[in-house]
């Protein structure tokens, strides 16, 4: 201010010659230069401070960013192996579908939302996908999706949509259309419960030892055979760690490489013809039962080969189409299949062959007979009375009364007849004898060796059979140990179990397949297979072999190429089959019964179907038993406290040389001979080649 005043008071420049060079002028200029110098110093201070901050204080963070910038993991998904039936009919194949993907490494959330909105908006202002914005967003943020791979958000888009999306890629970075392998089911809705489905690995599965070595984003088998044989089907993903430049172009040699190897094919022992028949018959049987005013919410059928333990067919109702779960969007699974109600009896994903645990009713009598025979409580020719009612303990004023299904006294009978007419009192007697001999001493004076339960476990009950399917349940063989544990656990609850400790009545009831005994349909099939095959209790198998499909030139074809060969012939299945591993059922045990004893039981089972008094005879009326003899046993399991029954029918045939065992179970669907046996008959007709009826109709059966 002072300087300015001085200067302006000096008046005009003209009076001073060489103003710039007067001492005052130079001083002024130097002051002005000093101001400029100060500005420059400030600029340098700013530059040096920033440089120090970036290169010394924040260097580590930025080093990491620099590394992430340039090293990229590139994973390739190998084609998953196919699944074929025993005749090499392709059940599960791969198809490559146009899939919209979004690379989360490239876009942030806001940008992604913008892109998804555009994808969902109809043309011409958007890409016109059929999928809603909400669904796309859910798919993008699926917790199971890999952070290293573009996330698929919509499948099966058409070529026009794909073009629109590709052309707009510069406006919507990170979005792309890719051909991704998708599970395909050429046989339609066949065997969803066996096949299972695939999807990206979930958090829990990542921790599971079963999937050791898997990484986030891997596609794994989630259920069924896809899960059990995941390691064969999956193959090895190719992996490259590469250095990329700014344009995303790979620079130089990869730092790490692993070759991609296609998954192996899996051949099942399933016969898709019989499988289809089993599913159709089960559905038809359920429908018939519902027409007869039964609830019949669920059911299961399993067809097994008793000679080798192979599963030929396996049907569970309610069912679903496997293609519903083929796209691998895990968040949508539940929604697509519908949420099961509280009782869970409408849960379509449950494979009831291995996971329904129900009382077997009279079908269990073969086991009781076996236990009594094995322990010499009766012989193959023994006669036991079959009165209308019995009391245990006998001649005790406080005895419990047990009724047969008829009041008539049917007199003395042997094992075969007891099965033929399904005499309850006959088996109550066997149960009583087993209890008094081997039950807990406190109960009826047995020696506590629980030989009955031991036999049951030997015959395949109380533990999972060990079939090659996940989530199998083992049922329950009640014994004193279980009783005491249950007592403790359920004390003071609404439904206390075993309140008074083990009672003789438990064994008596168990003898006819009631009480706390629960079994799975597969266990029933296994135990009947043992009776049919001379005593071998199998650990069943659904898979038969792991195979590589090699063409003449030795190259392994990709599933993409194979996709076209969907023919139902051997040639169409595997062109140059090369079995890598054969999978065989293992014998889990042997029934301790001799041929005579087994023959007695088998004779009874034949009579059930063939003789006029047999409980399944009405259901097989008109069936050419002379040409294709079938043996079996009905079961009607009373559900405690209700008038509802589970219907069972386990059979094998041809009974002179058994090739198949069929176990049928219908929940809350009346009597075994009435509703379950007709389902089996339908399947037997198909197997025997006498396909007459096309719909199951209920038969007569008033046994219990």
């Amino acid at each position, binding site marked *: 201010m002072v300087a300015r005043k001085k200067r302006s008071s000096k008046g*005009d420049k003209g009076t001073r010659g060489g103003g*710039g*060079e007067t001492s005052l002028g130079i001083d002024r200029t130097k002051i002005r230069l000093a101001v400029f110098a100060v500005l420059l110093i400030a600029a340098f201070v700013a530059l040096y401070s920033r440089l*120090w901050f*970036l290169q010394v204080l924040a260097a580590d963070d930025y080093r990491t960013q620099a590394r992430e910038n340039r090293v990229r993991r590139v994973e390739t998904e190998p084609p998953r192996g196919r699944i074929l039936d025993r005749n090499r009919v392709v059940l599960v194949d791969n198809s490559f579908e146009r899939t919209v993907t979004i690379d989360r490494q490239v876009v942030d959330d806001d940008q992604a939302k913008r892109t998804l909105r555009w994808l969902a908006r109809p043309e011409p202002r958007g890409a016109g996908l059929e999928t809603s914005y909400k669904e796309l967003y859910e798919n993008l943020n699926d917790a199971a999706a890999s952070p290293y791979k573009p996330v698929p958000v919509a499948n099966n888009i058409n070529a026009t949509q794909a073009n629109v999306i590709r052309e707009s890629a510069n406006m919507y970075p990170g979005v792309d259309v890719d051909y991704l392998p998708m599970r395909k089911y050429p046989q339609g809705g066949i065997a969803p419960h066996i096949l299972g489905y695939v999807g990206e690995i979930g958090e829990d599965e990542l921790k599971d030892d079963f999937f050791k070595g898997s990484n986030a984003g891997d596609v794994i088998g989630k259920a069924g055979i896809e899960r059990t044989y995941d390691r064969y089907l999956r193959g090895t993903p190719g992996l490259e760690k590469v250095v990329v*430049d700014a344009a995303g172009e790979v620079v130089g040699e990869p730092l790490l490489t692993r070759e991609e190897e296609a998954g192996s094919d899996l051949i099942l022992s399933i016969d898709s013809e019989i499988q289809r028949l089993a599913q159709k018959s089960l559905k038809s049987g359920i429908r018939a039962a519902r027409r007869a005013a039964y609830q019949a919410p669920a059911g299961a059928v399993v067809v097994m080969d008793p000679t080798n333990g192979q599963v030929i067919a396996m049907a569970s109702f309610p069912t679903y189409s496997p293609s519903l779960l083929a796209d691998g969007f895990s968040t949508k699974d539940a929604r697509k299949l519908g949420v099961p109600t509280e009782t869970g009896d409408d849960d379509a994903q449950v494979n009831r062959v291995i996971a329904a645990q129900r009382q077997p009713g009279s079908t269990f009598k073969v086991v009781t007979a076996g236990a009594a025979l094995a322990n010499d409580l009766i012989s193959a020719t023994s006669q036991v009375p079959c009165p209308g009612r019995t009391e245990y303990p006998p001649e005790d004023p406080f005895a419990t009364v047990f009724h047969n299904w008829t009041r008539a006294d049917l007199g003395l009978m042997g094992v075969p007849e007891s099965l033929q007419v399904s005499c309850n009192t006959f088996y109550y007697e066997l149960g009583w004898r087993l209890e008094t001999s081997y039950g807990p001493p406190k109960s009826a004076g047995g020696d506590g060796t629980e030989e009955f339960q031991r036999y049951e476990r030997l015959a395949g009950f109380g533990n999972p059979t060990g079939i090659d399917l996940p989530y199998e349940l083992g049922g329950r063989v009640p014994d004193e140990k279980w009783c005491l544990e249950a007592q403790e656990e359920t004390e003071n609850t609404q439904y206390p179990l075993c309140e008074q400790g083990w009672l003789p009545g438990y064994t008596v009831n168990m003898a006819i397949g009631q009480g706390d005994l629960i079994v799975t349909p597969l266990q029933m099939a296994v135990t009947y297979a043992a009776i049919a095959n001379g005593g071998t209790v199998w650990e069943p198998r659904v898979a038969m072999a792991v195979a590589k499909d090699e063409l003449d030139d030795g190259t392994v074809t990709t599933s993409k190429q194979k996709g076209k060969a969907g023919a139902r012939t051997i040639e169409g299945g595997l062109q140059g089959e090369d079995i890598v591993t054969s999978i065989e059922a293992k014998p889990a045990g042997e029934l301790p019964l001799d041929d005579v004893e087994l023959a007695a039981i088998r004779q009874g089972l034949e009579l059930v179907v063939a003789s006029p008094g047999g409980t399944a005879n009405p259901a097989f009326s008109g069936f050419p038993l002379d040409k294709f003899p079938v043996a079996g046993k009905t079961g009607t399991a009373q559900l405690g406290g209700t008038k509802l029954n589970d219907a069972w029918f386990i059979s094998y045939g041809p009974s002179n040389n058994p090739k198949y065992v069929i176990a049928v179970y219908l929940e809350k669907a009346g009597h075994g001979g009435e509703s379950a046996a007709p389902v089996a008959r339908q399947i037997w007709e198909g197997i025997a080649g006498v396909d007459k009826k096309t719909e199951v109709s209920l038969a007569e059966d008033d046994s219990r």
Partner: protein
Amino acid sequence: MGMQGVFGGAVDRIGGEPITARMARKAPIRHLDPMLMMITLLLTTFGAVMIFSATSSNQEFLGSDPAFFMKRQIIYAFVGAFALAGLALFDYRHLRAFAPIIYGVALLTLVLVLTPLGDVRNNTKSWFDFGAFQIQPSEFAKIAVILAIATYLAERKGDVRAIDVAIAVGIGGAAAGLIFIEPDLGGTLVVVAVLAVMLLVGGAKIRHFAALGFLGAVLVVFSLQAGLIKDYQIERITAFLDTSPDVQTSGYTLVQAKIAIASGGMDGKGLGTENTQTDLRFVPEQHTDFIFTAVGEQLGFVGSAALLGLFAILIWRALRIAAMSRDLFGTLVAAGIAAMWGFQLFVNVGMTMGIMPITGLPLPFVSFGGSGLLTNFLAVGLLLNVHMRRLI
């Protein structure tokens, strides 16, 4: 003492010393600024090395000569050295007479470059393409503007009226406007900065700056409203204020530049190291405007700080010359040059580190580019010129 013979033994009695000896002592050639020359050589060499480092791997990748850009820069430096020497020999005070002509030619080239004669590159019409080489007239225009403003303000002898400020602004503004139309925002701002510093040193008053500041603000608002500033320029300018820049667009260059510099750390990754931000071309324009990122990544804090130190000495020499100048013209020329270098350095290095907006500005002497290097050599020539004639 052989000198005495040459000048015939004539002696200035007053000074007690022979005139010839005094003249010889004051001879311009004896008053060069060796430090300024040394710094110029060091910076240019430094630049050539960094240009090689930033371009060689990509050149190799393309199957071209890895040293192509470095060789060209060295050729430019030799041309510049001759221009420097030529300009230094010609007494700068005579340039006052030529200043209007030089300025006129500069404006003409700036107009011509906007015509179809000019070549469009990177969306900017700022080049003349002569096949073997290209010329960017806006670079040379900076020198012309410095000379013109210095000539005019030196006439005012430190007493500057509003009309003088207006004329000086007119001189600078005409060039700045033409450069702005190309559009070259960085070049425009350099001219504006040079103008401001020369007004400061030349004697403009605080009220003049207040008025100019107000007019400038109005002009900026008007430019934004009228859409004279391109969207990409706004995006680039504002990107540095964005703390979470969109990785894919405007912030990309900035993010990659910062990563490159910071990942260099204290010692740097070393020249020619593979798989660096530089090697993988994550930073665009790295041999030109973003050359400092290559310095930061490869030479670390040590190298970057040393480079900034060289610039500090360079600008200090320019300021020293401005202060030592025999006349106001020389002072203004030197100050203008110091402003040109200082502003370019601050904005260029600042933008790579995220403290200044991204405007296309080369780093003097270091960035690849013939016109820029030649202009800077001419500026050194002018400084030497003022320095060596400070006594006569």
